[in-house]
């Protein structure tokens, strides 16, 4: 019978600490801004900023010095691509550079005077295109459109020449393009920018707001009690586990809602890739949240003042995004930074979320990420436990 009463007191203790922590959270306007303001409004803001998934009709300027029927046709075809729009026609390169300088055109296409003459003589000719790589998406648009149109022309010219030599259409085509090619984007098939960036940002928002919020609560706790201890002296040492569990439960439950909102509702609202159902989202969210909660609680010991978590930890956001391998390919991350990246739940979180929600992988296919999160959750739980126990012992000593 003694057994039951032990569990009973443990559960009531945990419930008590849990309610206490929930009260702390809702009393603290700073934490509310971070948890609910940033955790809920930031995704919406980002969703709207990147609402136009792809750039269409990027304005460019064309300098057509050949001015032949063929070159005009080429310009028309470039204009007809979804990526580019021939917004200006300039007579000289200097005029074109001017428009480029004023940011009115984001690319220049230059067709030399010898263009048609060369082609008539059976000589190779060139079409030049320039764009600014400072905005990668503009360069991409100019590159793919100009390349596509030129290669298309190449094939047509070659086929026409071969037909003139007496080949049938089919023979000419088979000679010009002996092997056809066809590309298929498998995931994020409309090349959407939001569909690429937002999933990573959402995971990072969950982790960063959680860690900063927990850090603020820890900082406040220290500022408000006399001895600047993380956990004020209340009960005996065997309560450490109860304190850790009770607090973690409070963060976990709040973030279960914020997590579902970010990972299921937001992708659905902004029509991003969304393979997740509530069920599969939970399979992923539970290990990710546990890892993030204990990571946050563990490092909160370093945040002596309530502002420190915000001041220092916020700055890691952009580097954390980069080392997760969602943009710069994970296969090419230097080994040192790869090792560092495994300390953060966001690395496994972003990879796992992308694979499950954007590419439809099942939970068993993201074994590696899941294991990573579970190991992190375990290690950070143990770390938190000992940090808390050390803090509790210290406050006990002060009181004696």
């Amino acid at each position: 019978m003694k057994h039951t009463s032990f569990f009973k007191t443990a559960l009531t203790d945990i419930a008590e600490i849990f309610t206490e922590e929930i009260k702390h959270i809702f009393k603290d306007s700073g934490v509310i801004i971070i948890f609910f303001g940033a955790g809920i409004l930031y995704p919406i803001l980002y969703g709207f900023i990147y609402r136009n998934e792809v750039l269409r009709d990027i304005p460019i300027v064309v300098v057509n010095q050949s001015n032949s029927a063929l070159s005009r046709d080429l310009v028309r075809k470039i204009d007809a691509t979804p990526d580019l729009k021939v917004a200006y026609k300039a007579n000289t390169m200097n005029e074109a550079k001017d428009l480029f300088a004023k940011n009115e055109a984001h690319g220049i296409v230059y067709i030399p005077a010898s263009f048609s003459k060369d082609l008539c003589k059976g000589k190779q000719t060139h079409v030049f295109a320039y764009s600014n790589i400072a905005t990668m998406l503009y360069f991409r648009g100019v590159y793919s459109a100009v390349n596509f149109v030129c290669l298309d022309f190449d094939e047509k010219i070659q086929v026409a020449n071969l037909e003139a030599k007496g080949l049938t259409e089919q023979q000419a085509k088979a000679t010009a393009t002996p092997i056809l090619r066809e590309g298929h984007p498998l995931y994020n098939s409309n090349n959407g920018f939001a569909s690429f960036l937002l999933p990573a940002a959402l995971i990072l928002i969950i982790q960063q707001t959680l860690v900063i919020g927990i850090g603020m609560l820890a900082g406040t706790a220290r500022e408000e009690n006399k001895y600047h201890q993380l956990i004020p002296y209340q009960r005996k040492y065997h309560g450490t586990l109860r304190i850790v569990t009770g607090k973690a439960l409070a963060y976990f439950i709040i973030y279960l809602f914020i997590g579902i909102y970010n990972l299921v509702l937001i992708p659905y609202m902004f029509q991003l890739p969304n393979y997740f159902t509530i069920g599969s989202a939970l399979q992923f969210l539970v290990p990710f949240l546990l890892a993030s909660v204990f990571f946050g609680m563990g490092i909160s010991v370093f945040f002596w003042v309530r502002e420190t978590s915000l001041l220092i930890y916020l700055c890691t956001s952009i580097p954390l995004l980069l080392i997760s391998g969602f943009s710069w390919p994970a296969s090419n991350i230097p080994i040192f930074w790869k090792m560092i990246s495994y300390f953060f739940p966001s690395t496994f979180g972003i990879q796992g979320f992308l694979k499950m929600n954007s590419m439809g992988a099942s939970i068993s296919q993201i074994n590696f990420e899941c294991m990573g999160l579970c190991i992190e959750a375990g290690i950070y739980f143990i770390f938190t436990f000992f940090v808390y126990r050390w803090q509790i012992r210290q406050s006990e000593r002060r009181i004696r």
Partner: protein
Amino acid sequence: MRIIKSPGWKVVFMRELRRIVSRPIYVLMTIILPLGFLLFYSTFLSEGYPEQLPLGVIDHDNSSLSRNIIRQIDATQQTRVAGKYLHFTDARKDMQQGKIYAFIEIPGNLQKDVYSGHQPTIHYYYNQSFFVAGSLLLRDMEIMLNTISAGVDLQTRQLKGQGVEESMAQILPIVPEIHAIGNPYMNYSVYLSNILLPGMLQLMILMTIVYCIGIELKKSSSKVWLKDAGGSMFQAIVGKLLPYTIIFSCIGFFYEIFLFKFMHFPINSSLWWMILDTFLLVIATEAVAIVMIGIVPVLRDGLCFAGLYGILAFSYSGLVFPIEGMPAILQGLSYLFPLRFFFKIYQNVVLNDISPAFSIINYLIMLLYLLFPIVVWRRLHNALTRLDYPKK
């Protein structure tokens, strides 16, 4: 900043220096973290251009031609064949797990069809959820498969006795030559570091300035601060911000010198233009920070505000997604971010080598930020003297 005769700002300046050395947080924020970020970005992106990206192959033909194609693909700088598969499903599963970013499916009878003039099709699949890797591989595969097809064409023509030059003029009559201005090697480090580092700098400036003013409110020491300045709010602000202006400018200049002189990033104008741009970013961001703490004169709320704004600035710099591509209402917000105009000046003056006269409007906007604090001047002054905001 103008130097004023009366020594009020000097007293505050000396007081601030003492404060900076008294607590490690200031050294961390102004020197250690900014240098840490420099180390991070320069080593993280040291490869410059991602090479040897993993891709998969499904070879249904297994002929000398198909094996030759696979060898050619593997031999390029950009890609490596990381997996060979028997079925589409297996390749797709590995793509879902991120082991490969693309794969190529070579149809059965490829060789037979090619030489009998049946134009077989090679299908390729790429993953745009990993945007950078997917886009690079898309381009690489387009080029490779085009080259392979043209190679067969060339072979046929040579067998018929045509010379290489003559054949090439037939196969590729129009050569597209596409150049990236200012970054001919498509170096990602050049592309990213030039804005991410100043972006980190503006974030650190925002947080530090909001902190150094907000802490006076939190600790109720703002009256002493104002008294030291001889009661002049202007002198109080100038004296307080001067040490940070000096430190952050030096850090910023160090960034630029490191990137352009040590890493040899392409620069088409004098380095002084970059130094000027950096200095303008430092003072404009400081002005914005004053506005932030002026609007919410509570340390923790001000920091939240500044942090959320500072992170948003990365999006609004227009580096990854151009402002023109955003919804019209949100485009207007870009005027609130000095980083946006820093980037424009860098792009025009330094990268594209366009006369600074074209950027005069951008320089003016940068200077206009300095007038921004007027909006909150009274409010901040009241908060400093009355200390009537919550301190927690």
